[in-house]
C-alpha cells in the first residue's frame, strides 16, 4: 500500500512537470504575442510553429511514454515518464539555443 502511494506521488509529480512544460509553452506564446504587439510586430509562421512545437512536445512525449509503459511495471513507467521529461528539457534547451527568437517576428 505504501509502495503504491509513493508510486502515485512520484507519478503525479512527474505529471506536474509535464503540465508545467505545457503551461510555460502557452505562457511563452501569450507573452511573446503581447510583447510583439507592444513593439508593433506580429508573430510569423516560424515563430508560431516553434512556440506551438514547444507546447505540443511535452504532450506528445507524455503520451508516448504512457503508451510504451502500458503493461509494464510501475517502476518502469515512472522511469519512462522521467526519461520523457528529461528528453523534453534537452530538446527545449536545444531550441532555446539554436533558434534565435528574433526570427519569430515580422
Amino acid at each position, binding site marked *: 500500500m505504501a509502495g503504491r502511494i509513493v508510486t502515485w506521488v512520484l507519478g503525479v509529480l512527474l505529471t506536474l512537470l509535464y503540465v508545467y512544460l505545457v503551461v510555460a509553452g502557452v505562457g511563452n506564446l501569450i507573452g511573446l504575442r503581447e510583447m510583439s504587439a507592444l513593439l508593433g510586430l506580429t508573430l510569423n509562421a516560424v515563430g508560431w510553429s516553434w512556440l506551438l512545437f514547444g507546447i505540443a512536445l511535452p504532450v506528445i512525449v507524455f503520451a508516448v511514454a504512457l503508451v510504451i509503459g502500458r503493461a509494464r511495471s510501475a517502476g518502469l513507467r515512472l522511469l519512462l515518464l522521467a*526519461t520523457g521529461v528529461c528528453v523534453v*528539457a534537452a530538446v527545449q534547451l536545444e531550441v532555446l539555443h539554436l533558434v*534565435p527568437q528574433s526570427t519569430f517576428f515580422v
Partner: protein
Amino acid sequence: MRKKTAREARESALASGWMLEADPELAAAAASVGGAQVEPNPDVVQAPDVAPASTAGSREQLSNGAVVLLGVIGGLYLLYTWVWFSWANYYSQMNAAVAEGSGVIGSVMQQLVFWAAPLAPALWFLTAFLLCRGARTWKLALWLLIGAVVLVPLPALVITGGA
C-alpha cells in the same frame, strides 16, 4: 585446389620471422601421430571445411559486438551528459539572473527542467536497457541509436549567435 603435401609450421625463406601457415587438419593429424603440438594461426581465415567451428565462433562474435556497441554508445552518452551539464549550468544561471522578479514556483520548475536535461542520456540508457532486457540485442541497439540521435547536443556542434 589445395596441395596435399603435408606441411608443418616452419620458418619462411621469404623473411625471417614470418611463419607459413600449418594446414589445420594435417597439423592435427601430425600432432596426434607425432605428438608435436602445432597451433594453427587463428588470424588466418579458416578453410570452409571447418564451417561448424566458425559458426560457433560467429555467435560468440555477436555478443562481443553487442558488448562493444554498448560500451561505445555508453561512452557517447557520457560525453552527451557532460555537454548537456555545461549547457544546463549556463542557462540556469542566465535564467536565474533574468527571472529574478518572476514567481517562485515558475522559477523553481524552470530550474528543475534545466537540470533535467543532463539526466536525459543516462535515463534513456537505463530505460532502453530495462525495456529490452528480454528482447533481442538489435532492439536494444536500435533504441540506443535512436537515443544517440535524439539527444545529440546540437548546441555544442553548431556555432550560432545564440538566443
